[in-house]
């Protein structure tokens, strides 16, 4: 099919053209710029005031240091935030990611440990890692379909639709473990959470790979455009022939799958399925990361890179707080301050204000 419609009488050329590519780049940059600045500031602070924060050494063939921790501990939120960004871009939200993490983790753990009182005891697949992963992830996938269908087909408001799974999902996870915390020994599975490859934490490498895949999948195809269309103006998108339901379904499924992976990493990391706490409140962090990354919670434009940076910002903050041994009561207050500061940094209005004040100082 000829992409460009019938030949067109070209009249006098349009007004002065600016080089497109540059403009595009700057547009994309702007969204990622401010979270990056924030990250830089946090790191700078630590460089100056937190002794040994940047100290990275090699212990028995592994990189070891706070920076590595940030990257390593940041992976679950990073994965969640990618999915969350897509969902938010369609004008939705996914509260169930934390529960899905717990669920996937529980399934994997029970398949490995096979405690008698677990309903999964009957499945004997503990020998084959691939099978375990496949089963656990397909449970996550089902969760995603559930959310997606409620939102896309039944047109429920995403926040309640996913709230259902947020509540019931954790219940299901407890059901799987029968309320216990099954622990296990399974080197190849544990590698998923605490293994090292080329001296780097394996979760980090995995997350980077997944990030690249998703980025390629969304921006390489036209999915990104369609998502933004749906999120930006559903009515117009429908008339333009965008299949909103399909697009949404895909996003919720991706979100749930990533949550599943995050859950597996978290579970493998502590060699146990702590269903009641795995991924608890992480949905908030994920949303926060997406928002810091410059994705509007009203839907529309989104930035996966931004989300990734956002996730790193959050983890850096957490690690900083831990490394500086700040009293638990204070940590929350500090978090609040940082969040608001971040928002202000991103607000053009605020920057204009600063400029105006600066000018007045001069005068």
């Amino acid at each position, binding site marked *: 099919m000829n992409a460009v419609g019938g030949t067109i009488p070209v009249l006098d050329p349009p007004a002065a053209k600016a080089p497109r590519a540059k403009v595009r780049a700057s547009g994309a940059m702007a969204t990622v710029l401010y979270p990056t600045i924030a990250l830089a500031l946090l790191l700078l602070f630590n460089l100056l005031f937190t002794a040994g924060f940047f100290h990275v050494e090699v212990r028995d063939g592994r990189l070891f240091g706070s920076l590595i921790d940030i990257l390593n501990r940041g992976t679950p939120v990073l994965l969640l935030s990618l999915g969350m960004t897509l969902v938010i871009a369609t004008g939705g939200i996914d509260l169930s990611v934390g529960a899905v993490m717990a669920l996937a983790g529980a399934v994997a753990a029970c398949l490995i440990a096979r405690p008698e009182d677990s309903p999964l005891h009957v499945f004997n697949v503990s020998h084959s890692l691939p099978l375990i992963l496949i089963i656990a992830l397909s449970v996550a996938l089902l969760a995603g379909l559930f959310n997606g269908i409620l939102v896309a087909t039944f047109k429920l408001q995403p926040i309640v639709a996913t709230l259902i799974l947020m509540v019931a999902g954790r219940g299901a996870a407890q059901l799987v473990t029968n309320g216990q915390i099954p622990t296990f020994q399974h080197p190849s599975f544990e590698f998923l959470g605490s293994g090292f490859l080329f001296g780097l934490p394996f979760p980090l490498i995995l997350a980077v790979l997944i990030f690249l895949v998703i980025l390629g999948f969304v921006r390489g195809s036209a999915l990104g455009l369609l998502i933004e269309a749906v999120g930006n103006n559903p009515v117009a998108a429908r008339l333009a022939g965008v299949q909103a339901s399909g697009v949404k379904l895909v996003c919720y499924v991706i979100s749930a799958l990533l949550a599943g992976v995050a859950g597996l990493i978290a579970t493998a990391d502590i060699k146990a399925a702590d269903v009641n706490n795995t991924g608890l409140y992480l949905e908030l962090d994920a949303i*926060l990361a997406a928002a810091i990354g410059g994705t*509007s919670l009203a839907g529309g434009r989104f930035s996966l890179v931004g989300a990734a940076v956002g996730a790193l910002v959050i983890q850096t903050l957490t690690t900083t707080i831990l490394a500086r041994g700040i009293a638990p009561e*204070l940590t*929350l207050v500090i978090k609040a301050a940082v969040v608001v500061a*971040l*928002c202000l940094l*991103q607000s053009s209005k605020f920057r204009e204000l600063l400029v105006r004040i600066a000018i007045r100082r001069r005068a």
Partner: protein
Amino acid sequence: MSAANPAAFGWWSARNRLRGVSSRSHFPLLMTCVVFLLIYIAACLRYRGFFSLQVAVNLIGDNAFLGIAAIGLTLVILCGGIDLSVGAVIGCTSIFVATMTEHRGWSPALAVGVALAAGTALGVVQGMLIHFFELPPFLVTLGGLFLCRGLGLLISRESVAILNPLYVKLSSWSLPLGGHATFPLVGVLFVALLCIVSYVAAFRPIGRYVYAVGGNEQSALLMGLPVARTKIGVYAFAGFCSALAGIAVTLYTSSGNALTGSGLELDAIAAVVVGGTLLSGGVGGPIGTLVGVLIFGVIQSAIAFEGTLSSWWARIAIGILLLGFILLQKLLQPERTNP
């Protein structure tokens, strides 16, 4: 489900006829109430002792502080925003009032007054940040959440019992309703607030401005409505309501605890949305929120009456009931026709 399906056609066409009615905004609300009644009646039939005035009254009394917070939140959501700080403000307020009256010897009146003022002030600040700097409400109020939780813990990690006689008297006061049924003070607070807000939302200009701003902020601005005042006012009121809810907690438990209301923001949002208010703003109302709160109340007490569910089955049951309810609601409501 499509009109083609002959089986469904009967009620489907009926549903389409309802379309006309649905433009009148109370129709969805009506449906929500119907569904609530269905659930309630079902519970009464299943559990002996569920159908008693006291249980019915407890539905309101026990969820009063959730309801109070939800009312404030309703206006925020109607206005096209969101407020995550409600739960944290509740915790912070309760511990503040408790500590001040018990350990600092403030008079309850003073403590309560300061708490309400502080809650409102927080709301104003959040509102200004959101309006003037165009910050995303979600983030700003998330900041509020962190801040208040932190402050609450800083005030006191320990929960504090309130022994102040006046306060105890207040908290134990309740309206006799005949029989053994009594209606606690917090319940009265809730209902009173609900009436006032519903009236304002429907019959005072400021109320309509809230709907207008939520419906389309740009248009509201061009129509010359006081957008700034409305938005900031709404967040201020939400802050006030949260603080009031915090005080309701102290009356309800005659104690303060920095951790109360953790995660309550989600319950409140859920109640508002289930009550038929659109998260995108401009559609819905406080009465719906009342129903939403009651629905969650019924689900919870039903599970308590069932009493045989393990922790996890309880969670799953809540999910399933919620799902069933929303789907039913969806089925009964004619969908909004797209322009």
